[in-house]
């Protein structure tokens, strides 16, 4: 088996969201459904000292995130039907719509906000790594669309060379699910679990 992985270069990403829109267009996703999302992360504060002088530590950085096709995916662990599964050849995590009951447990448990139940379809939906494009030798559409070339996708051994296993805020420690996302962090990125780094566009991404 060749485990596939994404990489994300935080020093290149401008937060333009072309990846997200390309995915929505290619997968023809409705309003309210996105398989890749860009999280706007903000840190720091602005203070005024006794003399009235302002100083700030404020910063922000974008993080483009889809399913990380984890080595130990919690969505697969909790799924009651086995609909959520890891592909034996590629390690990509996908939903078998013929088995899914749409209970939403994958959505509740995933710490990367990846699966979601589509109520109209009656089953969970998520990023499948554009598996059909992979078969024909193409990159996932989000990777191909990125104008800054901040995203990449390929065998995990190659992606591992491009950064650390995802451990920046607002993501959790990688030990929970062993995500196949490798990140080159921007200078302002905070470590995983740092609650001082806040997602400032929750209505857009959650």
């Amino acid at each position, binding site marked *: 088996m060749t485990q596939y992985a994404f990489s994300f270069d935080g020093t290149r990403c401008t937060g333009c969201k072309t990846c997200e829109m390309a995915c929505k267009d290619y997968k023809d996703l409705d309003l309210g459904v996105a398989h890749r999302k860009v*999280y706007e*992360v903000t840190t720091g504060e602005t203070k005024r000292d006794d003399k009235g002088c302002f100083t700030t530590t404020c910063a922000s950085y974008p993080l483009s*995130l889809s399913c990380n096709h984890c080595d130990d995916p*919690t969505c697969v*662990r*909790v*799924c*009651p*039907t*086995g*609909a959520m599964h890891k592909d034996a050849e590629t390690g990509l995590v996908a939903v078998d719509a*013929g*088995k*899914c*009951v*749409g*209970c*939403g*447990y994958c959505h*509740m*448990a*995933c*710490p*990367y*906000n990846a699966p979601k*139940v*589509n*109520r109209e*379809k*009656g*089953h*969970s939906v998520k990023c499948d790594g554009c598996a059909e494009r992979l078969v024909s030798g193409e990159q996932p559409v989000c990777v191909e669309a990125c104008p800054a070339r901040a995203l990449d996708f390929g065998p995990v051994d190659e992606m591992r060379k491009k950064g650390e296993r995802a451990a920046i*805020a*607002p*993501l*959790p*420690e990688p030990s*929970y*699910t062993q995500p196949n996302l490798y990140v080159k962090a921007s200078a302002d990125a905070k470590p995983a*679990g*740092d*609650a001082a*780094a*806040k*997602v400032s566009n*929750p209505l857009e*991404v*959650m």
Partner: protein
Amino acid sequence: MNAAVGFANAWDEITLVLFTTLAPSGVAALIIMALVFVARGPALDAALRVAIDRFLWIPILVTMVGLVASATHLGNPANALYVLAGIGRSPLSNEVASGVVFLGSAGVYWLTAFSADGGRPRLRRAALIVICVLGVVFVTAIAFAYDAETIESWHLPVVPLSLWANALLGGPLLALVGLAAAGYRSRDSRLERGLVAVAALAWAANVALYLLWGASLPQIENALGSASDLAPAFVPLAGVFAMLAAAGVALAGMTTARVPAAATLPPWRLSAAFALAAAGLFVMRFAFYMTRMTVGL
């Protein structure tokens, strides 16, 4: 994150709120009614034993309404049989499977209560012991159904403990309804008073657990906010629970104390007592589903 997100979380799972309100109490009530026969054995009057057996429909119905309600939140119930594939791996499969086995066994037991001779007491007693064990397994499975390491606001000891405390509050009150409907009255009302006392103790345990839980919510946080942002009214809601459940326990206590020892207790008044407690439990199960948040996003 804010209360609107928390409310949406819980509203999306409203049928699970109903299920987890009703099923634990229904199972506990069935166990208590069964224990009357298990404990007293053949000494129990045969006609009364058959009446208790037949009135097991009350806790069975309450549990079944819960389980059926929970199935309505599924996007595609046609695939439900695949749930068996996750037994042992998925806590949700464990819950569903143990619920189906429990209700199936209890249902078959109840049907056989209508046999002409009332069945063989020794066999029925053994069957009830097995059903009681299945019930304990089922309630424990409900308590741990959403225990996933990544859902930090639910991966806490207080979650399963409070669900068991819920069962021990609603269960005795519903058992009083079933026993009264069957025409059972213990000598000197010892059992009835005991059940009210258990419910009162469980009430106190619930209140203590909810206050502890409410105090811990601000410390549970991720990059989106804290669990207390999702359910800012958790402690006031626990107050609503305390009042409703206290009213239910008090009504059951007064009913038990005031009706003369030889007379049958009025099931409707006891039903109202259970309904009050169940309303309180519903409020806190709603609050529970409001607090869902993961270690990440």
